[in-house]
């Protein structure tokens, strides 16, 4: 019963990995992969000599780190607070509603973000009503704000969903610990800080390791959909770069080299984090 799926795995998952040889060839589509000219590390050298590549790398890591920090913090904070809500109906409703944005596509979220941040949008209206702004600004046309907008959109979309796992971990905390803390006179804040948070620390660390390993794999969806010509400089991420230069300009070998670079970085990152977690004696992935 598993035979067809092994075939599937080989075709759809392992043949593309074998396609990595393209990065060491001068791939020309009219020939098969066995008839290509071998050029060694030429495409990697080209890649490291390209200034645009460093910009893409900077943007990828910048938005990746911002997303990781704020994504993790917001999910933990939301889970912590939700865990404290005693009014069960409110808890259930807030949680259900908080998942909502996770289920819609980035196309829709990008559309929502652009609408909200437009010159007639709610954000400009609010800022003007409070008196922070004199006249509306076109947020989507501010290169310096692009990273922040992407991060905020990400937090809005995924906080509720990411909180699920922390909430599940919190549900497993021994209630006796809270009883004991209460006897000692600990306030709700102190209970959250000294009991709930330390109890979910292993989960936090495992998820952090996994996410750091994926730091470079932040994808391109948000950047592609939220970006425009004005902010292009801040929106160019590695995958977009591979897409534009690889498929867009038919430089297949060059594009493949970018993919390999990404995979190598992410494996290195995950090994470093895992080793670090092992050293400090916390939960680790493998």
């Amino acid at each position: 019963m598993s035979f067809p799926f092994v075939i599937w795995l080989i075709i759809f998952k392992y043949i593309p990995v074998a396609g990595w040889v393209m990065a060491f060839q001068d791939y020309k589509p009219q020939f098969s992969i066995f008839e290509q000219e071998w050029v060694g590390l030429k495409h990697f050298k080209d890649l490291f000599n390209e200034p645009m590549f460093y910009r893409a790398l900077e943007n990828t890591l910048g938005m990746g780190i911002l997303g990781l920090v704020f994504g993790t913090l917001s999910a933990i904070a939301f889970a912590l607070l939700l865990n404290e809500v005693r009014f069960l109906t409110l808890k259930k409703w807030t949680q259900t509603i908080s998942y909502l944005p996770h289920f819609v596509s980035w196309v829709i979220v990008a559309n929502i973000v652009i609408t909200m941040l437009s010159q007639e949008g709610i954000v400009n209206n609010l800022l003007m009503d409070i008196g922070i702004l004199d006249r509306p600004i076109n947020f989507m046309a501010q290169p310096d704000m692009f990273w922040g907008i992407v991060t905020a959109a990400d937090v809005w979309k995924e906080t509720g969903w990411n909180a699920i796992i922390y909430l599940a971990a919190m549900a497993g905390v021994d209630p006796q610990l809270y009883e004991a803390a209460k006897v000692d006179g600990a306030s709700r804040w102190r209970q959250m800080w000294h009991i709930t948070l330390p109890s979910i620390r292993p989960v936090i660390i495992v998820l952090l390791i996994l996410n750091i390993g994926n730091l470079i794999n932040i994808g391109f969806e948000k950047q592609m959909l939220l970006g425009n010509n004005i902010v292009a400089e801040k929106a160019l991420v590695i995958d977009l770069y591979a897409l534009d230069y690889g498929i867009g300009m038919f430089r297949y070998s060059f594009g493949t080299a970018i993919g390999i670079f990404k995979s190598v970085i992410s494996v290195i990152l995950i090994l470093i984090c895992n080793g670090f977690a092992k050293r400090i004696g916390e939960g680790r992935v493998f």
Partner: protein
Amino acid sequence: MKKRKWTTFDIVLTAFMLFMIVITLYPFLNILAISLNNAVDTARGGIHIWPRDFTFANYQEIFGSNDRLLQAFFMSILRTIVGTITGIIASTMLAYVLSRRDFVFNGLVGFLLVLTMFISGGLIPEYMLIRQLGLINDFGVYIWPLLISAFNVIIIRSFMDNLPIALEESAKMDGANDFVIFTKIIIPLCLPVIATIALFLAVMQWNSWFDTYLYARSSEALTTLQFELMKILDNANISSGDITSQNAEVIAGQTNPQSIKMAITIIATVPILMVYPFLQKYFVTGLTLGAVKS
């Protein structure tokens, strides 16, 4: 449970949760209101969560006079249904084999599967593969590459691992073969996890646009709602990142791109949002179980 006194802490907490609900829901309600508002009137601005000049014209435009959007709508539905069904069949079958302790290549197949979560060929080799398989501008491109996801298989498998093994053994003694056990015993018992994975697959299929962009861009028949929306978004972005102000004077007719965009957004959002609250209890347990195991 004893009723507690409401402290300041509880009040602040409740206020914060209400705030969370508002900032999550407001954008959706705002878009719904704009999509139901007269397009010319919308250009004046100031629509929040309630349409000022109520009309269905924007939806009529999509479903009545725009064949391409109607087609995109049906293609989105088709790929979601076919993709979800084939995906469920494939991942439950694979998960069942992997959960069987008597299967010899269990370890090897499991390893091949899990490894795909960490390595992938990347954009270009995958594109070349799809091209070589002749899937460009073919409906199959929505189905075949997305057939199996290691994450989903692991979740189903860990659910199956928790089923009592005695059930299978007694069925075997009654003369049932593996296929009968799978369809008559395992599948019915796995319905909660299957519901979860079905939701994940449906969401993934319904929300995809990049495969259309990459592999079916030139095929009018294969266009999807998300892709059409993406194109509108893209055009708007190219002009200035903000179309409403420019279009305000230009629009003479009943609808404008902004209103149509909002209406498509609603059509592309609502079907998914209608299912998830019902499946919520399944995916919360499914996700935590899967995450803890892997």
